[in-house]
């Protein structure tokens, strides 16, 4: 069973007399355990596609089904709750809550899910250990490097036990060492725990690690390549 399935996805914007096809009839399936990169030049529509898959944007037409649930049918708080339970997000600018510590940031999503405190604490510690930040638990985002913050963001994305992780340009603000370190962690989680990752990026270092690369241009899938790693 596919984790993500899109059928004839279309997203158009009107700008004056022009109609822009940001996503143009995209149908794809992503299976559990895939390490997929959606790549393409700026303006190719990869972020729009990622936003629609993540339930952050509505398609003009077409369907998105996540783990058997058609999310294009969901509205408002239903959609927010679906994201909470099923999708983990990693953003380009880390986007941690600055007034909370690393541990509180990771535990926050589970708190929204209503998980008991003991479970939250155990999983938070486990995840921060997995991303190599067991000693930084009490630090606030401003006391950590960009790489460390992005690792906290990955731990936060995993905390809710989502169906998959959507990562939008996760390495864009990181130096080489931090990028390698982050990709190692994600690849390890993908290999050992079968966690599904979907990236939107044009960073070659990420593309090189991917098992599947979907190239998008002018809103259409140009190439869909699978690699054995």
């Amino acid at each position: 069973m596919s984790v993500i399935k899109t059928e004839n996805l279309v997203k158009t914007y009107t700008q004056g007399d022009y109609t822009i096809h940001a996503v143009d009839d995209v149908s794809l399936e992503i299976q559990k355990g895939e390490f997929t990169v959606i790549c393409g030049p700026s303006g190719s529509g990869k972020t729009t596609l990622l936003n629609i898959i993540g339930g952050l944007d509505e398609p003009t037409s077409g369907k998105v089904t996540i783990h058997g649930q058609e999310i294009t049918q969901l509205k408002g708080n239903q959609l927010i709750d679906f994201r909470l339970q099923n999708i983990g997000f990693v953003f380009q600018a880390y986007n941690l809550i600055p007034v909370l510590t690393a541990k509180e940031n990771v535990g926050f999503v589970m708190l929204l899910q209503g998980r008991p405190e003991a479970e939250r604490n155990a999983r938070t510690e486990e995840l921060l250990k997995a991303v190599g930040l067991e000693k930084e638990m009490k630090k606030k985002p401003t006391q950590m490097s960009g790489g460390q913050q992005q690792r906290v963001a990955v731990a936060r994305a995993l905390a809710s036990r989502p169906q998959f992780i959507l990562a939008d340009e996760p390495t864009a603000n990181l130096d080489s060492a931090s990028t390698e370190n982050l990709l190692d962690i994600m690849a390890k989680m993908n290999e050992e725990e079968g966690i599904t990752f979907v990236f939107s990026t044009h960073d070659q270092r990420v593309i090189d690690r991917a098992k599947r690369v979907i190239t998008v241009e002018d809103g259409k899938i140009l190439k869909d390549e699978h690699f054995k790693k």
Partner: protein
Amino acid sequence: MKTIIKIAWRNVWRNRLRSGVVFGSVVIGIWAGLFVVAMSQGMLAQQKRGMLESQISNIQIHADSYLADPKLENCIPPNELANIETVIASAPEVKHFVKRSITMGTGTTASGFSNLKIMGIDPEKEKETTTISERLLSGSYFTTFKNKPVLIGRELADELNLEVGKSLNLSFQNINGEFVQAGFKVEGIFATPSLQYDKSNLFILQSDFMELVEADAEMIHEYAIVIDDLEKSTAVSESINQKINGAKAQDWAEIAPDISYMDEASELGQNIILVIIVFALAFGIVNTMLMAVLERKRELGMLLCIGMNKTSVFLMIMIETICLSVIAAPIGLMLAWGTITYFGIVGINLESVGDALYKAGIDSMVFTAIDPWAYVTITIFILIASIIAAIVPARKALKYNPAEAVRAV
């Protein structure tokens, strides 16, 4: 909910300078609002007390005919005086009372003349009932001159160029309708909270009054009564009225309705001041929180992305906004309470504008006073204003598109 409160609370302290400015403005706003109200209430209370203590007392009794036409012959029927005094003396609420003989006349000096209300009094009884003896700016209280002493107000002294020891000619009609004239010596100059009163009223000895009007029997035009509780004035005057004939007792509010209107106007004015201050504070809070919401667009977008529902985001911003004023309000209230209590005891010396205050009927030493309900009122106003002020930024936060907000620079 606990975590939402925790995040909201920490957000309050995120930009200490900005939150500090809001706290400061709420503290100063509350303090200033209450202090201005306390100053105004203090002045009003002094003005009211001064007018009651020096002029009106709490209850007055006049002949029915005098109320219709205040002429010399319209005195209280002499055969009713004993009954009236018995009735007054037997009322347990009455502390002191005094009787006065009154006529209208003219005061003349080389500098001019003035129409006057001439009151013949018993100095000792008057001293117990009114504060004229304590309000002397110069001279003495019927102790220096044996021959026809007179106490005049400051405004009259200025108008007729009089000083202590100088002569004032008084002329008025006697009981036979003939004009009589007599020279009086200014023994003292008083100042009450009313400029008009000080310009047109003077006190002479009742014995001199009787002699000049050539009355066969005692002529009493007015009883002024002080009771133990101002609030009982109406009840006591009504009770007296049931037991006397040919005369009527009136409470202070009936004699000087402008004083009771002042109370109502002051309460309205006080609420208007508080509403204006709270309104201004609310605008400041809205502005600050809108800036905060704008600055945190990416963070709010992220919260919506990862699954924080709109109600929680709304509540978080509401709590954060309300926190700003709820923390500052008690500090402002305490500061106001402290300063109002302090200046209520030691007073504020406004000697530099004493003349202007005198003309407005207020002493130059102002003692702050406030109705305790003003603290409750402003607290309720602040709470309501905070909630209303919180809605604007909270709604703004909800309008963010998470996909766009999360990428905001």
